[in-house]
């Protein structure tokens, strides 16, 4: 019995596009992204593997390639080439990223600081895009790759938009679980804070500790004005947690504060206690 996804892949390979006349040979299907199918292909000129995205639907949609070409950042998958197939469809070749999708990577045992380290690198890439006026609009663990050497890349910018364009479009795009309410409603006011919401939704699955959940909840506020106003602000609060400092999103009790102090200064506390124990033993021996 062949599973449905396998059947889907097989039939898609049979319907594989004709890449004759290009420098690429299709090898297999890597996945379906926003607005197209991504194939594993071989670049016959440079003899290397690439991810070849063939744009479905609107043949004139060069949006993702143009956006990616502009965003040169270690956390954003780079575009190598762009062109047109004999059937008129557009394609572009991207770096072939080896590793795990974040949702699969998360299934393996990684401690919280390691997970949050990956999260911060996703934030870096998204903040970079925002600084260049681009909103991703479909951030989710499935769109993040953690490479074999720990590199973190944000993929699938197929529904990303320039901020000023996003603000006037009403088209509802994204994934429900990670979609900000204003994005789900198709509001005209969707801005970079929709990505802050999606990052908050991702962060919720990263750790069950109260400060991290409080950060995620703040990032996921229904009202964009109550969220972190930038990805940098969100990342800064996560960094504060990692450094053992108080986070903005969570009002601490005295017990919380003591517990945090103990976590942050565990080693000095242990050494001081050891020192005091040594002193007490010395005194005891002197008196005996």
């Amino acid at each position: 019995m062949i599973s449905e996804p396998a059947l889907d892949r097989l039939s898609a390979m049979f319907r594989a596009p004709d890449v004759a006349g290009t420098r690429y040979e299709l090898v297999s299907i890597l996945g379906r992204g926003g607005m197209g199918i991504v194939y594993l292909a071989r670049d016959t000129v440079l003899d290397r593997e690439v991810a070849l995205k063939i744009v479905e639907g609107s043949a004139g949609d060069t949006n993702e390639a143009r956006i990616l070409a502009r965003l040169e950042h270690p956390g954003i998958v780079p575009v190598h080439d762009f062109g047109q197939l004999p059937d008129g469809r557009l394609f572009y070749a991207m770096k072939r990223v080896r590793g795990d999708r974040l949702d699969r990577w998360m299934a393996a045992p990684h401690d919280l600081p390691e997970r949050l380290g990956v999260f911060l690198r996703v934030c870096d890439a998204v903040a970079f895009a925002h600084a260049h006026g681009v909103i991703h609009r479909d951030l989710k663990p499935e769109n993040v790759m953690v490479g074999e050497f720990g590199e973190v890349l944000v993929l699938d910018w197929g529904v990303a938009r320039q901020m000023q364009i996003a603000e006037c479009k009403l088209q509802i795009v994204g994934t429900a679980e990670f979609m900000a309410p204003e994005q789900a409603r198709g509001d005209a006011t969707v801005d970079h804070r929709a990505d802050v919401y999606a990052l908050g939704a991702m962060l919720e699955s990263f750790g069950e500790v109260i400060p991290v959940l409080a950060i995620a909840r703040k990032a996921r506020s229904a009202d964009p004005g109550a969220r972190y106003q930038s990805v940098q602000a969100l990342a800064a609060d996560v960094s504060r947690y990692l450094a053992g400092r108080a986070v903005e999103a969570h009002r601490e009790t005295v017990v919380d504060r003591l517990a945090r102090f103990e976590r942050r200064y565990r080693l000095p506390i242990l050494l001081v206690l050891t020192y005091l124990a040594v002193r007490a033993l010395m005194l005891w021996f002197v008196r005996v």
Partner: protein
Amino acid sequence: MKKVMFATLLGGFLGVFDGLTALFTPEVRDQIVGIVIGSTVKGLVTGVIVGFFATKVHSLVLGTLFGLAVGAFFAYLILLGNPGHTLNIMLPGSLVGLIVGYTAQTHQT
């Protein structure tokens, strides 16, 4: 917290306890205020030196050994004025330096 500040506070904190243990030695109990102040200042100075060293040299082994050496040096200075209490002065003073040196290197700012 910056390394120098952290090491200074830790050195001072340990210095206070170091001095207070003199309460258990009856023959010096009447000088306890001076001992606590002197011991605290010794701890603070050790902390400043060791903390500054930690900002310049990032090596756990060197930092710890440097702390031990500074602590032992100041303890030796105290010992010169109070002969006959070698173990009671040298051991705690060196331990304070060792602890401050180690934690200053491992402390994340």
